[in-house]
């Protein structure tokens, strides 16, 4: 150690040119390089040793050694080592008399110092000393340091010293001083208030670099507070016209951009100059800045013809950017183009080449260019090119051989696709079947894992895509009645796809809703099948779907854990998305309802016994499935499950009474069937254990089998019940029969035959209970659903007499736990009273009793008066007496008139009824919504915290100024006095004072903001500035 020290001293004497300690530093660097080649551990070890060495070096008294150690640490800081622990040593080096060491000290300080309070108190003195050095290079060094390190306290203490340097003889110092002053202003806004004029004065500095720095400072302040500089526009304008320095010009343009936003009148004066600059210059950065200034400075208004000419010139200039093949120019050109297009969307067609540029950028391999182009591609879309644009967007979702699609892009493309499609209430969509196909592709490409790519999509992004797509499906279903059948088919396919529930369950919220709501509109896809066939196929499809969703219990009772027959059902039970569950409960009931009404349609109201039992069995399964959620932890799910369970259980009782034997029989049959199927499968897989895909295939088919099974059953029935039009069951819609099934069939039929006698004996026509035929549909079909605009509900006026505060009733009440109603409703449960012994419970209630109870319940807020329901039910029963046919309900749901599509060529515009959104009269569209959205303030660690200058006003007591112009001077004086006082006082006391001062100040600022806002444009309000210049500006602006 000591040897090394001597060594370096010898070197220092031998080599007088500033490389005395380089050996030690280069040793370190070489060491790092050689060790990093070995292994990370070796490097870490080496670095630990090096830091330890530095520590020991710092503990010596020799400044030279210390400086060397600090320099090494500054190097290590780049490797992520914190060096704040040696801040005091850095300070010591900074105070060294030797410039070489001082320089190292400052270098390290700039890298390492942060808001260390106690340290900066010591540093303040050092800064002051250096600022007042006789050597201007030292002053410059100190100013650089101050600009980086400054904190509120330091700013206050050092303010006067830096201010003095504004008048230093050397421009080098003046330039640094003015930039350092900006940092002081940021930390200590009072200083700006006092020294504003001195900053402005620097615009007249003889040295161009000082002017440049001053413009820089003004430009930065004006971003926060442009108002205070408006009076100095003429001066800035002269600088702009005089200089040839592009750096300075760009900065002035930046400044004008901020000023123009608050002083629109300056546009007339400066716009010609800017245009001139733009057309004259060769520098693309300047052209770009000119366009930015014009566009972002809000100098373009859509109404003015002249402005649109200006915009066109700008676009012409930008088009040259795209011709250069320079990707940077392409990018910034695109940015500027986007900004112009946001104001003048028409130019995308008007100016030649613009739409092509956007299209090219959409397919650019550079993702950032692609994303930018995405932002504006909706301007591109019209009726004619929508398919082209959509295709382009879709191809962006397809990964290429060597690259994958980032998830953020997936989200953006999806959102944009939806935006393009829904533009003007689907005005551009040529054919909705095409659109549904597009949506299907989007789901496949974004949400479902692609077989080739290994990339996974994060749950958040997947979730937001799924929610958006789901919304779109729902929108489409409600708004475009003619597309519902197609949509429904697709939705059902997705519901049956186990990948959906695995990867993006949130999509299912809307899918289940559509399934439930529009299940009656299910049609067969193929065009040429005749109706009779169709309806049977559709019923089969519904039953298949139903089984798929609710048959979990079969797997359970078989004790299966892998290779389930009904994987979706099993997943659904355990699904962690309450919002989906809440919807699926309703949807299942609707699906069941649809199945029941289909049965009723086929067999009239009198069902053959076996059919009757089938429905019983479905109902039984549904009850069994819903009871999975009886104790669900989510309140909504539990509530819905429970209330439906109550109703369904009643229905089941109404159907079967106590006799569950038929159901048990069906269940057993089902279970044994799947058991046998399973065994056959296992055997097969043992026989040829080839690939897993084989097994999956057979899994899929097992779903089909359930229908197959149902079909067979009915085949048997055909013998006994000739009424039923059963041949429909013959053509198996799920054609591919695998070997397993064929193996299966003999077994099955045998089994069935053994049971046949029992069934036949029961066989007689039975009527479905009214609960199922009338009441259940009435829950869903009473009203037609129409799209309602987003904030229609908000604009419904609150009824005047609505008083939520006053008590409804003070009469004490007892809770009634038995909400089951009166005779009327009781009658509705069943058509054949004798068969239903259960209901006798209520039937025993006498009329008297009931009346008394009604009176009691009248004031019970938890009890809804049955009167209105009764009337409704009566009307229902009336229709029932006219032998209700399920068709009347299906008719109702298809009621909205659908104009027939003219299908000539594939993507010719079809005529489709698109329902417009209902809204309440006088509703102001979007305004309510808008106001509720408040922009979130995000804090960025990297942004300069210039919040101190937010709403900063030169005169904190502006309000008073309006009435009394002398106030300003008094105020100034008082501040000076305060400052002087503060300077004399002890430091801790000072802190306290400044705090209270600040509070007063902010209050004053708040007030002053009001005054300036209301008074922008009228120069009278701005009273701070000297009168002379004010007059001048007036003249210029009105010129």
């Amino acid at each position, binding site marked *: 150690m000591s040897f090394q020290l001597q060594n370096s001293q010898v070197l220092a004497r031998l080599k*007088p*040119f500033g490389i005395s300690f380089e050996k030690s530093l280069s040793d370190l*660097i070489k060491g790092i390089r050689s060790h990093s080649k070995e292994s990370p551990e070796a490097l870490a070890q080496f670095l630990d040793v090096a830091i330890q060495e530095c520590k020991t070096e710092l503990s010596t008294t020799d400044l030279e050694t210390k400086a060397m150690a600090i320099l090494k640490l500054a190097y290590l800081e780049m490797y992520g080592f914190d060096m704040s622990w040696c801040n005091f040593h850095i300070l010591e080096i900074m105070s060294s008399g030797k410039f070489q060491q001082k320089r190292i000290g400052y*270098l390290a300080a700039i890298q390492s110092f942060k808001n260390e309070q106690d340290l900066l108190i010591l540093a303040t003195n050092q800064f002051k000393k250096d600022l007042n050095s006789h050597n201007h290079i030292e002053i410059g060094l100190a100013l650089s340091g101050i600009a980086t390190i400054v904190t509120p306290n330091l700013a206050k203490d050092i303010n006067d010293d830096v201010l003095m340097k504004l008048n230093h003889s050397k421009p080098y110092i003046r330039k640094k001083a003015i930039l350092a002053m900006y940092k002081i202003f940021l930390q200590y806004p009072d200083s700006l208030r006092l020294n504003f004029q001195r900053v402005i004065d620097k615009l007249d500095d003889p040295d161009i*670099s000082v002017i440049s720095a001053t413009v820089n400072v003004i430009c930065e302040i004006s971003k926060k507070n442009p108002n205070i500089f408006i009076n100095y526009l003429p001066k800035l304008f002269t600088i702009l016209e005089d200089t040839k320095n592009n750096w300075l010009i760009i900065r002035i343009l930046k400044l004008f951009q901020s000023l123009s936003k608050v002083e629109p009148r300056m546009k007339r004066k400066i716009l010609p100059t800017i245009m001139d600059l733009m057309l004259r210059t060769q520098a693309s950065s300047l052209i770009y800045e000119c366009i930015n200034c014009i566009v972002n400075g809000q100098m373009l208004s859509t109404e003015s013809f002249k402005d649109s000419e200006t915009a066109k010139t700008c676009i012409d200039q930008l088009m040259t950017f795209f011709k250069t093949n320079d990707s940077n120019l392409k990018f910034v050109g695109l940015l500027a183009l986007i900004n112009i297009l946001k104001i003048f969307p028409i130019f995308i067609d008007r100016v030649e080449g613009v739409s092509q540029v956007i299209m090219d950028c959409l397919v650019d391999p550079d993702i*950032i260019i692609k994303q930018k182009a995405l932002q504006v591609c909706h301007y591109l879309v019209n009726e004619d090119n929508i398919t082209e644009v959509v295709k382009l967007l879709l191809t962006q979702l397809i990964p290429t051989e060597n690259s994958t699609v980032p998830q953020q892009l997936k989200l953006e493309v999806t959102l944009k696709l939806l935006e393009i499609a829904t533009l003007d209430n689907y005005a551009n969509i040529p054919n909705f079947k095409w659109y549904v196909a597009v949506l299907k592709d989007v789901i496949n490409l974004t949400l479902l894992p692609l077989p080739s790519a290994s990339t996974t999509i994060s749950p958040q992004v997947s979730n937001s895509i799924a929610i958006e797509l789901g919304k779109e499906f729902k929108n489409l279903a409600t708004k475009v009645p003619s597309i519902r059948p197609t949509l429904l088919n697709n939705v059902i396919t997705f519901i049956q796809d186990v990948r959906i529930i695995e990867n993006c369950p949130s999509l299912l919220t809307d899918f289940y809703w559509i399934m439930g709501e529009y299940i009656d509109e299910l049609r067969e896809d193929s065009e040429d099948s005749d109706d009779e066939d169709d309806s049977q196929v559709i019923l089969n499809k519904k039953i298949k779907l139903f089984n798929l969703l609710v048959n979990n219990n079969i797997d359970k009772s078989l004790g299966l854990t892998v290779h389930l027959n009904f994987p979706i059902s099993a997943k659904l039970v355990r699904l962690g998305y309450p919002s989906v569950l809440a919807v699926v409960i309703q949807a299942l009931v609707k699906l069941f309802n649809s199945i029941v009404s289909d049965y009723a349609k086929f067999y009239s109201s009198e069902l053959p016994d076996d059919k009757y039992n089938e429905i019983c069995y479905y109902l039984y399964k549904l009850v069994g499935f819903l009871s999975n959620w009886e104790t669900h932890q989510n309140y909504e799910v539990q509530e819905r499950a429970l209330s439906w369970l109550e109703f369904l259980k009643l229905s089941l009782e109404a159907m079967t009474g106590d006799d569950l034997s038929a159901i048990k029989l069906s269940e057993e049959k089902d279970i044994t069937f799947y058991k046998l199927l399973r065994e056959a499968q296992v055997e097969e897989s043992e026989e040829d254990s080839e690939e897993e895909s084989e097994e999956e295939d057979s899994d899929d088919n097992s779903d089909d089998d359930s229908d197959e099974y149902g079909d067979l059953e009915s085949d048997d029935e055909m013998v006994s019940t000739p009424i039923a039009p059963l041949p429909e069951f013959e053509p198996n819609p799920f054609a591919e029969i695998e070997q397993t099934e064929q193996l299966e069939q003999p077994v099955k039929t045998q089994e069935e035959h053994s049971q046949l006698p029992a069934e036949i004996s029961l066989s007689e026509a039975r009527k479905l209970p009214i609960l199922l035929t009338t009441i259940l549909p009435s829950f869903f079909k009473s009203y037609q659903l129409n799209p309602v605009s987003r904030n229609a509900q908000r604009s419904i006026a609150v009824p005047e007499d609505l008083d939520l505060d006053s008590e409804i009733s003070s009469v004490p009440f007892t809770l009634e736990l038995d909400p089951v109603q009166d005779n009327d409703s009781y009658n509705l449960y069943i058509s054949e009273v004798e068969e239903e012994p259960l209901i006798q419970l209520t039937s025993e209630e006498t009329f008297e009793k009931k009346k008394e109870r009604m009176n009691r319940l009248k004031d019970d807020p938890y009890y809804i008066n049955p009167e209105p329901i009764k009337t409704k039910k009566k009307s229902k029963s009336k229709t029932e007496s006219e032998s209700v046919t399920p068709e009347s309900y299906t008719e109702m749901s298809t009621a909205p008139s659908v104009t027939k599509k003219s299908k000539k060529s594939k993507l010719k515009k079809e005529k489709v009824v698109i329902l417009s959104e209902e809204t309440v009269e006088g509703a102001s569209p979007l305004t309510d919504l808008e106001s509720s959205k408040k922009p979130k303030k995000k804090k960025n660690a990297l*942004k*300069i915290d210039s919040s101190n200058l937010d709403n900063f006003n030169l005169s904190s007591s502006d309000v008073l100024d309006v009435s009394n112009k002398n106030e300003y001077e008094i105020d100034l004086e008082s501040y000076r006095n305060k400052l002087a006082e503060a300077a004399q006082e002890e430091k801790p006391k000072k802190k306290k004072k400044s705090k209270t001062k600040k509070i007063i100040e902010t209050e004053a600022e708040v007030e002053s903001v009001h005054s300036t806002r209301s008074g922008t444009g009228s120069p009278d309000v701005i009273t701070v500035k000297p009168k002379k210049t004010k007059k001048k500006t007036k003249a210029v602006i009105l010129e």
Partner: protein
Amino acid sequence: MAIQFLFLISRQGKTRLAKWYQTISQKEKSKISRELGTLVLSRRAKMCNVVEYRDFKVVYRRYASLFFIVGINSHDNELLALEVIHRFVEQMDKMYGNVCELDIIFGFDKAYHVLDELLLDGYIQESSRKEVLKRVDQQDELENMDEFEHILS
């Protein structure tokens, strides 16, 4: 035109120079430079030199084996930032004489000195090519004077 940070990374992703004009924690610093390193290094040569990161823009440029990465506000002029990078490289080139990565590694303090004369806390303080180097030279001279005195003493 406020530059938030400027750093140099090698093709292997090693930091060669780092200047932060904001006070942020060491942890944050290394996170940003790591993230930006992978982001920038993954981009191909033909792509544009601007990327968006968080809510500001990052402008980078490659010179030989070094990537110069600069963070600017989202409203700042990207082309100007490229110009600043180029100016910085130009100055170093003059000072070291045909600058290469090793020059910057071993003379990192000099690179910082040039940068400090070109930018003052993220703001361009000198647009003249000569002026920056003149100032750095003056400082070097002053150092040598010290050295001289040291020897004399």
